[in-house]
């Protein structure tokens, strides 16, 4: 971005850091958030990505000797199953004040969350978040230097609140002079540390958000038998998993001679469930009724599974109540037709998708075979 370089050079800022604001998954960033230090004070300025760059809405943060910003970051699929990052409207600011107090703000006007003292440098990034497994989330990662050693602290989003873990000291390869934390494009967190003239890069484990390959449908589920069972899928384009809770009756016939003979289905699942929960990758801002009207659920034979009512459990979780899943067998289909009434929290219309639900991962129980109800002759016309 040569224009951005010119902008930063023009104002002769020190210790600047730039974050891109990209609210739409399929559109380029629309705004820059620029953190910089001028005369010993920290500032946040905003600039449109449209040329020419121009700072506006500058916010004073107070005394600072280092500052770093990033936007909260999510990602999701477009209509072609390609995954894109987008940024909710939450700017995360890490700073070290002149006394060495390391703090984080979740939003420019939010109160400070103090993380450590005696710090000299800091860098912050929002890590990769697994799209369906909330436990696999690298959270907000703040890397900082304290007395020549590098530490990180991570904030995990749990029940809509960030919980900050204890400081972790990285292995030392000398006296650290600078640190920078970034996301890599292979789903890791990278911490680059300068030790005077040499640098080291620390890489985290990969977080596979489930989108490293295109998913055409829900890939896997897990559920228990009879009570308190659940179905969980790894991923799909816009549904992260589907869950059945309550009275689950699952069955499969593992008879060898039968499997050899039957031609259409290796496993004869028979699912009876009262609840199906749909968890989306992003928060939905619509009424449950609007979502229900856009959903069509059918069994393996194409017969519609009627949903009696829908309940919004949380921002991204909806529970469907149905008593008509008895003959869903080993798969069901969920089709969502895009509707202007169903949008995410940033105002984007949720794109259409179609997903299959497969059942697996539980202990097979022989199903109850059909029993003969009646036997009678059939009068037949013979010429």
């Amino acid at each position, binding site marked *: 971005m040569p224009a951005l370089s010119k902008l930063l050079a023009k104002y002769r800022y020190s210790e600047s850091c730039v974050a891109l604001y990209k609210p739409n998954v399929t559109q380029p960033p629309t705004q820059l958030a620029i953190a910089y230090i001028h005369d010993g004070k920290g500032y946040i300025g905003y600039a449109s990505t449209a040329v020419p760059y121009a700072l506006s809405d500058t916010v004073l943060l107070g005394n600072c000797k280092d500052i770093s910003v990033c936007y909260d970051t999510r990602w999701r699929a477009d209509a072609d199953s390609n995954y894109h990052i987008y940024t909710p409207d939450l700017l995360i600011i890490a700073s070290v004040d002149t006394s060495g107090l390391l703090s984080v703000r979740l939003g420019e006007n939010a109160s400070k969350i103090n993380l450590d003292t005696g710090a000299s440098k800091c860098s912050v990034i929002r890590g990769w978040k697994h799209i369906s497994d909330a436990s696999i989330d690298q959270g907000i990662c703040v890397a900082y230097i304290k007395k020549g050693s590098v530490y990180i602290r991570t904030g995990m989003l749990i029940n809509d609140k960030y919980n900050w873990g204890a400081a972790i000291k990285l292995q030392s390869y000398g006296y650290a002079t600078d640190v920078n934390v970034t996301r890599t494009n292979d789903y890791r967190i990278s911490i680059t540390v300068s030790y005077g003239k040499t640098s080291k890069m620390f890489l985290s484990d990969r977080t596979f958000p489930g989108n490293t390959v295109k998913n055409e449908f829900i890939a896997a589920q897990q559920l228990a038998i009879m009570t308190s069972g659940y179905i969980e899928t790894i991923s799909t384009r816009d549904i992260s998993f589907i869950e059945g809770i309550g009275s689950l009756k699952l069955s499969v016939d593992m*008879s060898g001679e039968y499997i050899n003979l*039957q*031609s259409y289905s290796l496993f004869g699942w*028979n699912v009876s469930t009262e609840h199906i929960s749909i968890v989306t990758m992003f928060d939905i801002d619509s009424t449950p009724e609007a979502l229900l009207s856009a959903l069509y659920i059918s069994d393996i034979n194409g017969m519609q599974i009627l949903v009696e009512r829908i309940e919004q459990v949380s921002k991204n979780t909806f529970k469907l109540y149905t008593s008509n899943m008895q003959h869903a067998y080993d798969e069901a289909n969920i089709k969502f037709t895009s509707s202007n009434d169903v949008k995410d929290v940033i105002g984007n219309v949720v794109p259409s998708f179609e997903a299959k639900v497969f059942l697996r991962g539980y202990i097979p129980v022989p199903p109850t*075979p059909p029993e*003969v*109800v009646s036997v009678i*002759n*059939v009068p037949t*016309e013979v010429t």
Partner: protein
Amino acid sequence: MWSKHIRITLDKPINRNQALLDASLNAFTITYNTKLFVDDSSVAKQTPKVSAISYETETSIVLSISDYILDNVVGDVVVEYDKTKGSLAGSTGSPIESFIKVFEPINLTERQQPATRETIKLLQRVNNNMDIMFTVNSSISSDTGSFNSFIVSIENALTITVSGTIKP
């Protein structure tokens, strides 16, 4: 109305795979008695083979019987299924258990067959040979093989017995 079919209704959906149905023909044993003659009460036990099994509805199949018809049944029909010989299964894959069911046929119209008891009439004697000719009331098959199984036995010097079955 002639009846050559038996409907079996189940309480759950049945696997409609025709290969499974065809593999179950020999698993059925059907037994009933039929009248031998219309003018007396003698009966003969019949065990016709099942020639076809067809999927009728989600929960019913129909057995077709070869060779015999049900219209002259006396009493109940016994339908027996042996799961070790058959492959019938539910839609979820579970094999249908063996069963024995008895039913009384409905809506039967007794057919004019077999005919009234036949009588043999001595028509002619040539030299030392005796030709026997007899007539029946109903039409019979033109298949001469139908008569090969006749057994002629001599009771005494004056009486002979001819026994066998003719096909209508």
